[in-house]
């Protein structure tokens, strides 16, 4: 890739308070499905509009606005959204009414807001942004495909200044709980902070929105530079080290150049070997971090890893609650984020200090 891409603004809504970096305090949950800590949405969205919005839309608009404000962008040149399951609450509402009322006397409100591109569309509407607008919905690489698209946009158009990229997923009462039936969630409730000590199947889940204001120009408050993004649908377990070496090679880096690795481990003993393999081999001497014990696992949870990477690169600090090993990283320079879900939809994101 040619042009440099900087993260100049970050807005997040997650199950953790933002003081993780300053005070190291982490919220604890005792259910396998837990909600975000809601900000005061009224600070960002007019009350009239707020009433009709599902959580995904509220979280999306709010985090988008925080990111844009920090980067001092009013209207971005593109809005690219990733979401695994989109507006699940409205989908569930319309679906239940339809089934309960045997297809009779239905009102359109929840149907209107059920499409996966509602979040991206509502952000555009809220900002009055008529520019490029796309929504990706590829399971755990939804946000990563959005980043790839942004990367191409910057390469294609030298006049582009800013792109808003983000990932959003919400929990809904029924559809999210169905994951207990097919082994995606752990069968008994656990404490979230103990997730990585578990030796059982399934994981824990939550919701969240992570938006990033990207630009090809550095600013004083820039977090990090996005070097590259790669997605791959299927990787045989024994090939994971090779795959990552090949990715690093295209970026002219050795595994030794990566000082910090953020792993998407989610406590599911059927698939965590993808990460363990890397921990024991390629990145044995690298600072290893994890985050899903804090925010749960869902399709766009890797947005939290990008948020962490940005803050680590900017502040030079690593909250100890993230650490998987004792290897110190004095001044983090290159951070690699690796994620997959159920052995599919693998992604690599490489970020650097600038």
């Amino acid at each position: 890739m040619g042009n440099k891409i900087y993260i100049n603004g970050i807005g997040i809504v997650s199950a953790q308070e933002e003081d993780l970096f300053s005070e190291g305090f982490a919220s604890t949950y005792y259910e396998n499905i837990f909600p975000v800590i809601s900000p005061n949405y009224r600070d960002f969205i007019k009350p009239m509009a707020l009433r009709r919005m599902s959580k995904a839309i509220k979280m999306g608009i709010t985090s988008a606005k925080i990111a844009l404000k920090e980067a001092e962008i009013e209207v971005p040149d593109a809005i690219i959204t990733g979401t695994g399951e989109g507006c699940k609450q409205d989908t569930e509402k319309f679906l239940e009414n339809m089934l309960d009322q045997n297809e009779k006397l239905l009102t359109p409100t929840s149907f209107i807001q059920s499409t996966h591109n509602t979040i991206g569309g509502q952000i555009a509407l809220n900002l009055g942004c008529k520019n490029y607008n796309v929504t990706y919905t590829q399971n755990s690489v939804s946000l990563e495909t959005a980043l790839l698209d942004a990367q191409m946009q910057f390469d294609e158009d030298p006049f582009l200044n800013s792109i808003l990229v983000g990932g959003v997923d919400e929990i809904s009462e029924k559809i999210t709980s169905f994951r207990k039936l097919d082994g995606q969630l752990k069968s008994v409730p656990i404490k979230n902070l103990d997730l990585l000590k578990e030796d059982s199947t399934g994981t824990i889940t939550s919701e969240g929105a992570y938006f990033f204001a990207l630009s090809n120009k550095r600013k004083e408050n820039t977090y990090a530079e996005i070097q590259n993004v790669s997605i791959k649908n299927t990787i045989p377990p024994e090939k994971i080290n090779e795959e990552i070496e090949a990715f690093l090679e295209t970026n002219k880096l050795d595994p030794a150049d990566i000082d910090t690795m953020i792993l998407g481990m989610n406590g599911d003993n059927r698939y965590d070997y993808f990460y363990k393999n890397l921990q024991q081999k390629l990145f044995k001497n690298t600072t290893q971090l994890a985050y899903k014990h804090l925010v749960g696992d869902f399709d766009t949870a890797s947005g939290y890893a990008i948020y962490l990477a940005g803050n680590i690169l900017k502040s030079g600090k690593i909250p100890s609650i993230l650490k998987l090993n004792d290897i110190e990283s004095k001044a983090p320079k290159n951070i690699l984020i690796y994620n997959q879900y159920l052995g599919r939809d693998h992604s690599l994101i490489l970020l650097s200090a600038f």
Partner: protein
Amino acid sequence: MNKGVAVTGMGIFSAIGNNTAANYRSLILGKHGISSSEILETIHKNLPVGEIKISNESLAEDLNLPENHSFSRAALLGAFAVKEAVTQSSWKIDNETGFISGTSVGGMDATETYFKDFTEGKTDNNRFIRAQHPGFTTEKIAEYFGITEFVSTISTACSSGANAIMLGARMIKAGKLKRVIVGGTDCLTKFTLNGFNSLMILSDEQCKPFDESRNGLNLGEGAAYLVLEGEEELNGKPVLGRISGYGNANDAFHQTASSENGEGAFLAMQKALKTAGISSKKIDYINAHGTATRNNDSAETEALKRIFSKNLPDFSSTKAFTGHTLAAAGALEAVYSLLSLQNQQVFSNLNFSDPMQSSGFIPVTNLKEKPIKYVLSNSFGFGGNCTSLIFRKNGE
């Protein structure tokens, strides 16, 4: 003007035929595929649909799927269309093949069927729990063909398929992929039929795009995919046409309605002409979005007026043939645009009798033969997502 990205294969499955040849035959004979639903179990039998009259069981059997497969209907239809496209393009899927699919419904057919069972904690069909993810449907198709590398899904409502084609063309141009299968798939579901019905934009008769008395759309189902290849991969293989322009914009007006002056549509067409490097005068035929709702057709004609002013080329909507296939529409109509270039024909806009008072525009109502070099295809969706594609005849 730019050369554009080569299309070397195409496949389609719709209510007017289960492959490209069958679709073409229906188009030139003016044979539509609108009927009362037989496969979809709904109480709304009065609402005509563009339904493919083949059951899931029979589709799965033809694809040699095991009995406990977890293909949604959209995945089944998609697999057929991909198969045709790949066969035509004659190469083996390798690790430099990408797959980008547009879908809005995804596996909603499975979700609505098993929702109550899952609510009651029944696990018999739990392999369909993840069907609620649009990416699940895409992954099933990828799995079937052994596509393991770049696999992604776009869900921008009715412009999904067009956006998938646009992303694929951009990736080929950027050298990120050597070849990529792009398009879209959506099946009929109770969810969408009832959703559009609750919005009161479904017609209880055959839809009449661009007619003054149009009163709504007919939903349809289908899948279509193109194979796009980089220039250095062609080695003299036949090129069906080229994607020379694309544009994506947002109407930023309303979640479901289009702005009166068709701002998003206007911007999308303007950007497409710009990337193609041509003036609007070069367009020989427009395959319009033309859903036959009051709102879409009036916004689209306003946008067309703004782009073409007095030089409006021949245009038609083929939705009266297939119904509105949502995320697949842009992909189906890409195949029709390529057929139009190959055969130098403009397909007819069925069921038209009176021009809209607001524009006076008259679409092509009988199959028309003429020299065609550039075709513009429009796709607009909920969320204000508007995308236009420009296809160019190869070699000219």
